[in-house]
């Protein structure tokens, strides 16, 4: 029996990726406990919907993490773009509430913020975690200026209503937007020259430099994409809520980071894929949804998320030679064999 399992490629792929394993276990467990309601098409759509915002942000932040940086400004960009879009539409000043212009301004702000981060981070070697920690505060400062600390309620805009409320073929629009972003990130990372350069620079910046890869430009574009995706997520969030507020999307960067890490993208850069990062987000979404359906009191949810992340990352570490866990596993297998 064991050799059938061992050399069957599908099984091997599943066994090797610890995350899919954890996911499978969770899905089976939740389905059993909720007597099937978990494993329904409607619930799957709900999970995708609950994960859509984080998913869009991941499609941006993933580029920065693959290059070894951690971009905490996804939330700041989201809040700023949402506020700008709402203000432009509501005030109707510029171009009479013209939606297209509002969106351009909002996404433009995200791109500008990404450009500034990219310039600083590609020129100086500052830990991205620390720089974006400070700049996120600055972005939220600007959001307060734009919204002058009030809640902007936008109810007249058909496009935002469509994105925020309507469904197409039973699936909410933000899910489609997320899927488009994932496709975009997947194509860029796996099928374009830029994607190859991201993995090369993330793995070894000096060897890429000597191979003629424009490393500074690669880093700059990564943060522009990250800024753009943050802004897009902000626009979708404002559409969902039909409002923009100064405290919007707060602390989303922790969820984005947790998902990317659970997805097996290494913090040192160079390894990990967008599919796995999204899988990480989906995994966390499944946990939250499963616990909701089981009626698990809210107070246990945070703890469960923390433990799941530790388990998922520890399983990864066990596959890397040299770590005590790896040696322990090796000794364990030897004893078992």
């Amino acid at each position, binding site marked *: 029996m064991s050799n059938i399992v061992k050399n069957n490629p599908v099984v091997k792929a599943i066994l090797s990726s610890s995350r899919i394993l954890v996911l499978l276990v969770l899905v089976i467990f939740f389905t059993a406990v909720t007597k099937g309601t978990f494993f329904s098409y409607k619930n799957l759509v709900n999970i995708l919907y609950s994960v859509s915002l984080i998913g869009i942000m991941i499609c941006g932040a993933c580029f920065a993490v693959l290059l070894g940086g*951690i971009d905490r400004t996804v939330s700041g960009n989201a809040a700023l773009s949402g506020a700008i879009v709402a203000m432009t539409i509501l005030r109707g000043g510029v171009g009479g509430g013209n939606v297209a212009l509002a969106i351009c301004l909002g996404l433009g702000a995200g791109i500008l913020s990404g450009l500034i981060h990219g310039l*600083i981070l590609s020129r*100086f*070697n*500052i*830990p991205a*975690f*620390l*720089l974006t*920690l*400070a*700049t996120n*505060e*600055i972005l*939220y*400062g*600007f*959001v*307060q*200026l734009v919204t002058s*600390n009030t809640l902007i309620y936008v109810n007249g805009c058909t496009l935002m209503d469509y994105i925020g409320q309507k469904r197409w073929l039973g699936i909410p629009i933000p899910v489609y937007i997320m899927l488009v972003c994932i496709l975009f990130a997947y194509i860029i990372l796996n099928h374009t020259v830029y994607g190859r350069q991201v993995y090369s620079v993330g793995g070894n910046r000096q060897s890429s430099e000597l191979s003629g890869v424009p490393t500074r430009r690669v880093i700059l574009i990564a943060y522009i994409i990250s800024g753009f995706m943050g802004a897009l997520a902000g626009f979708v969030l404002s559409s969902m809520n039909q409002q923009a507020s100064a405290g919007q999307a707060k602390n989303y960067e*922790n969820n984005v*980071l*947790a998902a990317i*890490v659970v997805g097996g993208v290494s*913090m040192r850069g160079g390894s990990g894929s967008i599919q796995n990062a999204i899988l990480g987000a989906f995994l966390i979404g499944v946990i939250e949804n499963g616990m909701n359906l089981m009626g698990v009191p*809210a*107070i*246990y*949810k*945070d*703890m*469960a*998320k*923390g*433990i799941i*992340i*530790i388990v998922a*990352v*520890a399983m990864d*570490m066990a596959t*890397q030679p040299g*770590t*005590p*866990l790896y040696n322990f596993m090796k000794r364990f297998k030897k004893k078992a064999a």
Partner: protein
Amino acid sequence: MKQMRQETLRRIISLVLVVVLFVVFALSTDTFLTWDNMTSMLRECGVVGILAIGITACIITGGNNLSAGLMMGMVCMVFAHLYHYTSMSLIMIILICLIAALIAGAFNGFTVAVLQIPDFVATLSTGMVFQGITYILAIRNQYGSITSELIQNPTMSMLGGRLPNGIYYVTIAWVVVSLIAQLFLKKTKMGTYIYAMGSNRKSAEYSGISYIKVKMVAFLISALCSFIGALFFLGRYGTNDVDSGSALSLQAISASVIGGAAFSGGRGDMIGTLIGVLFMQVLRNGVLKFNMTTAQQSIISGIIIVLMLVFDAYYNEFMQKRTTRAAALAREKENAGK
């Protein structure tokens, strides 16, 4: 000129900045340089400063500790829980809180050193676990909702109190713990090992220093600081709620890096962190004085921190270029001589 150590110079820069900010704020508003304002500003340094001490120890080993604030919140909740639901004596409660903090510190150490999960990710998740424990231990009212409870205890409220002329006990504790930690870092064997492990792990391990032991000690120091911080937190506010301390970790990390600690490890010490905390509070307190809206405050303090980071990175680059150039010129001079 003997080439100055990197963080010595960084500390001088932050010290100069503190003095500059101090003078600017003192001159431009008359409400800044009052004794009351000074003591209240030094009081604000207290709890975040004590946490920063523990976090600096973790950063020097080349790691980080994002769970310090949430651990403090957990220790507060352990105290509130025992105080509310049991009639233990104050000493017993404080003892149990200390043990809880040390266990949490050991858990951090285990996740980082044994499971080898990168510090950043590990402490992010252990922070969530501590948050969960805080929720579970929270005090409930008759309807079962989470509530917070006023701790009526003369000893505890004294901790939040101040000396007759105004300096708060928490400020004194902050300075005392800083000095103790500085002595520990500079004068003890384990202190040297913490620096060695952060600066060059391979060479430290070759000299027989165990990575797991050093990491465990660093996280236990951080746990102890969270414990002390928790006592003074309860002393000051007389109560706690479920997200007490959740924002403190990031503030403490920024303070210790501004004070000279470097994420790459092996750099920084407690005096630098003390200055970093002072810098943050002078900035925060001063900016408040200008009737700026909170928007302007966060923008200005954010920009000041970014400028400092950029200057620091530029300075390091400049020094590196200078030393390689100097070496080349030395060879040149000698070569020309031949």
